């Protein structure tokens, strides 16, 4: 097996390494493929589909699809952008995302993604589900209204903390995050120092009493759009 794999993404030729996913190869080349459920350091999961690309014309999730020689990948074409916008919209309307008072506003990846795509209001109607808040734990809270079912916390707790605090229950539109205990967070082994506490892309899994401590203007996405850390690598 040769030690490089040649492929093109949006007409840019690049050399990936065998075993990499499309997303990993793109990251290394400084090409940002939008993603929400994927987080470096966690097993790829492939649920949000925001990383959808066309590989030789066929849709694939860039975060799970391994590269192979000669792949011709479209990531920033109009068609792909429109699909991603739809998916971001869907995540917004599926939950109750009130950015205007959410404590993750400015640091939220879903919100930042919407800004990156120029979405000011979703094209789909809000579903306004009725969802709970689990504030039983003294230092941690889950606001299910904002969970996007990305499983980052599930994977981090399982693979990094060795705990399996989180999992999913129910199916289809009713699928939701649950904790590995009778019903409440306080009954689990979760701790505020767990790695799982640092991975939630939105304002669903929260450390209590840390809200709004960073003023507007110094939040993560106040000045640069999401993805610029990766695109920045390219221009250097």
């Amino acid at each position, binding site marked *: 097996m040769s030690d490089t794999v040649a492929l093109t993404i949006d007409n840019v030729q690049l050399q990936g390494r065998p075993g990499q996913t499309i997303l990993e190869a793109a990251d290394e080349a400084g090409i940002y493929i939008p993603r929400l459920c994927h987080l470096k350091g966690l097993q*790829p*999961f*492939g*649920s*949000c*589909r*925001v990383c*959808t690309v066309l590989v030789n014309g066929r*849709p694939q*999730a860039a975060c*799970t*699809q*391994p590269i192979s020689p000669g792949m011709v990948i479209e990531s920033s074409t109009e068609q792909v952008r*429109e*699909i991603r916008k*739809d*998916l971001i919209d*869907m*995540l917004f*309307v*599926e939950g109750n995302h009130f950015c205007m008072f959410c404590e993750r506003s400015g640091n939220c990846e879903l919100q930042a993604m919407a800004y990156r795509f120029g979405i000011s209001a979703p094209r*789909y*109607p809000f*579903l306004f589900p009725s969802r709970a808040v689990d504030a039983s734990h003294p230092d941690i809270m889950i606001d299910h209204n904002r969970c*996007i*079912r990305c499983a980052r916390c599930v994977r981090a707790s399982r693979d990094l903390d060795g705990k399996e605090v989180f999992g*999913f229950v*129910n*199916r*289809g*539109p*009713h*699928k939701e995050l649950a904790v590995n205990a009778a019903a409440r967070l306080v009954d689990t082994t979760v701790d505020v120092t767990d790695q799982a506490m640092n991975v939630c892309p939105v304002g669903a899994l929260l450390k209590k009493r840390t809200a709004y401590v960073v003023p507007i203007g110094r939040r993560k996405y106040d000045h640069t759009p999401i993805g610029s850390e990766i695109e920045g690598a390219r221009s250097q």
Partner: protein
Amino acid sequence: MLLTERADRLFAGMTIAGYAIGAAEGILYLRGEYAYLRAFLEDVLTTRYRDHLLGAAILGKTGFDFDIRIQMGAGAYVCGEETALISSCEGLRGDPKTRPPFPAQKGYLGLPTVVNNVETLCCVPKILEEGPATFGGHGSPGSSGTKLLSISGDCSRPGIYEVEFGIPLTEVLTLAGADDAIAVQVGGPSGQLIGPKDYARKICFDDLATGGSIMTFGPGRDVLKTAACFMDFFVDESCGYCTPCRVGNVLLKDRLERIRAGRGEPGDLDYLQRLGTTVKTASRCGLGQTSANPILTSLANFRPRYEEMVKAHQDGFNPSFDVRAAVSEAEGIAGHSSVIYPQPIEER
């Protein structure tokens, strides 16, 4: 029907498949609805063990070892998707797995696995017995052999028919007594809803592909209702793993219901088309990739019916929601009826 009437042939096919790929274990995945068949199938297996057609050194051939066990499932539709089926066999949630790796690389418990359906496996002994030429002599180019069709709906002779691949749909409809069908769903919920202009098309892999299901709808049926029922089905059966299938199907269903309730607007057709295409393109597994078909195919084949429901009102004003219903919750909280949208006096 194959399980009840040709179980032995199925198990023979599985055993041959095991021999061909060098596998020692086979699993029959039996969904919950067929639990009543289990005792009977176990009997058939016992008989085959007794006859040395299963177990160690089959028919005295050293090294040809093959066992079959029956795995019960709970009956989720998505478990017909091969990777979800494997998850279910492993005792996990019946969620599809990420591909690659494909089952043939890493399947059940991480081992290479071939997943086939009962009908395919039943063909295997036949082909070996009668020779490929006989099998290839049936059917049409690219689609050899015969196909079992399960025909239901508005027809005078519903039932299971074995037909040659390549048969035009009209002939199938005549066989089943459904010549007056206004619409036919070919291939189950994830297939296509087609109308009379397509009845001349043929049942085969490159034209009207079907796993075997044909549902007929007679005069007086409303295709929008048919599509809505199938969308209900997909909303229920989605595993919820990926965004487009989990959310998109609900949105499709809601908009279709709004149109059916007479509150549609002309732009809704583009809305359904766009949304359906995204669900089809971006979903993670076969279920999601086909779940928009009831809407996409009915929209393509019965567009006038949709157009009739969404035409612009004469006053140029299409109310997309019921304002009285919308304010009722707020009225409850406030303890007053709305001042701006008062109830008609007779309702008070």
